[in-house]
């Protein structure tokens, strides 16, 4: 029997807005598993909290409930919902990659350096890292004339390719993808699908948000459908008492 690299039990995320006195529900009761060399597809209507699940795993969001059990490369299982900050930084650095919908990178850096960065941070030489970055950018069909400039002025589709290249080139053990082909033309989207299939064969485990049923069928080894959260008032009654802001102020 295969062991999952990621197992989520009863994950929930809601936002407590103190100023407005409101609690905004996002994901609720999410259960899923991700395996090496497999892709778990996360589907559901807008507002079902799909992105919140990915951000919760990456800890850009603090999970409100549930456990996120991640098995690291030494076989140790860690609950990412409660892992300490240094552990999270180390995992982001070495094992878990995240391609978000929007590109965030250091300003004034060349596209090649942006894409090479995760490799350099892991100790690869700058030359090797830039070579690998160049290969990935070429594979994703980004014109070579753009490689030496900062992605700041790129179109949406170009930025998404830079973002994807940076996530794919690092070949993390677990890759989180938020609508990886959303703003790409069909030719480039097909290339991305090819690369996803390649790195899947190489052992990378993926959790990806898709909107196209066709893509879900082609790439997903498992499919998890999220439903939109309960009506607003219900959640406020049931969850606000349970939710306590972080009390720990140690860093």
């Amino acid at each position, binding site marked *: 029997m295969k062991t999952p690299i990621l197992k989520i039990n009863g994950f929930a995320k809601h936002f407590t807005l103190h100023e407005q006195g409101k609690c905004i529900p996002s994901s609720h009761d999410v259960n899923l598993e991700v395996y090496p060399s497999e892709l778990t597809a996360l589907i559901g209507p807008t507002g079902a909290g799909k992105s919140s699940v990915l951000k919760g795993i990456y800890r850009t969001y603090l999970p409100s409930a549930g456990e996120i059990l991640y098995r690291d490369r030494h076989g140790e299982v860690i609950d990412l919902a409660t892992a300490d900050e*240094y552990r999270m*930084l180390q995992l982001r650095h070495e094992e878990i990659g995240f391609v978000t919908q929007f590109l965030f990178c250091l300003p004034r850096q060349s596209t090649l350096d942006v894409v090479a960065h995760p490799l350099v941070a892991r100790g690869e030489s700058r030359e090797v890292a830039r070579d690998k970055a160049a290969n990935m950018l070429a594979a994703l069909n980004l014109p070579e004339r753009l490689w030496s400039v900062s992605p700041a002025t790129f179109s949406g589709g170009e930025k998404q390719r830079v973002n994807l290249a940076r996530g794919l080139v690092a070949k993390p053990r677990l890759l989180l993808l938020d609508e990886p082909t959303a703003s790409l033309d069909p030719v480039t989207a097909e290339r991305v699908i090819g690369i996803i299939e390649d790195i899947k064969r190489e052992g990378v485990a993926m959790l990806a948000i898709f909107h196209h049923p066709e893509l879900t069928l082609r790439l997903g080894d498992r499919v998890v459908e999220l439903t939109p959260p309960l009506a607003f008032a219900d959640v406020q009654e049931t969850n606000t008492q349970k939710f306590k802001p972080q009390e720990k102020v140690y860093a």
Partner: protein
Amino acid sequence: MRKILEVRNLSKIYGKGCPRCIESTGPEQETNMCPYCGSVVAIHDVSFDLHAGEILGLMGESGSGKSTVVKNLYFDQAPSDGVARFFEADAAHEMFQLNAAQQRRLRNQRFGMVYQNPHLGLNFGISSGGNIAERLLMSDVSHYGEIRARAKELLSRTEVLLSRMDESPAAFSGGMQQRVQIAKALATNPPLLYLDEVTTGLDLSVQARILDLILEIQQERNTAMIVVTHDLGVIRLLTGRALVMKYGRVIESGLTDQILEDPQHAYTQRLVASAL
């Protein structure tokens, strides 16, 4: 990842203090001045760790106590209470138990400080090169040629025109003064750098280049840094983890992207919302 600094329960009270100072100040009371004795609780119970090569952000509004934290850690002031341990490869120092000479040694050789106000970090009575020489002399480099060469190397690294190294920093623009301060702070290649609002008040293009320089230095030398700023852009650009302070207390801490995208405390939510 090696821990280089551990701060526990750091407190600083200006004034004689009284038993009710702590309970009657802080974010809930919305003041840092004790209504009973008039003492100012600048910081109370601040604790954090810092690892080698890490950049930690201290954010908060004016008067939140963020600068006081680094001033205490740079020995500009003595804390009222608390512990700080600085770790070197072969030694650990109880920072506030050291005598004055030992503190000076850490300050001159192991720490660097860049202040918002260049007058605090630079001696305007001597040349820019002289400012760097001063710091090298305090750390036992005494050969003139060696000092001169090192000063040149540092100033060119921080992009200060070498043809102007014999001028007083008084003749320089704000951005240039900050570059000289950074060069001076780096003179002894310290493992720990404190940056106190270093880009505040500079125009945007100058800010950008100073921030790029700071990141390059961090990558080249693996210098750990504590960055004090009220500017969320600087926090996002430079830091991996951050503490949010208000009225002398740490009200929230976490991974920087989490603090900016999913702030937990009402004050941080307001702060982040007002920046976007």
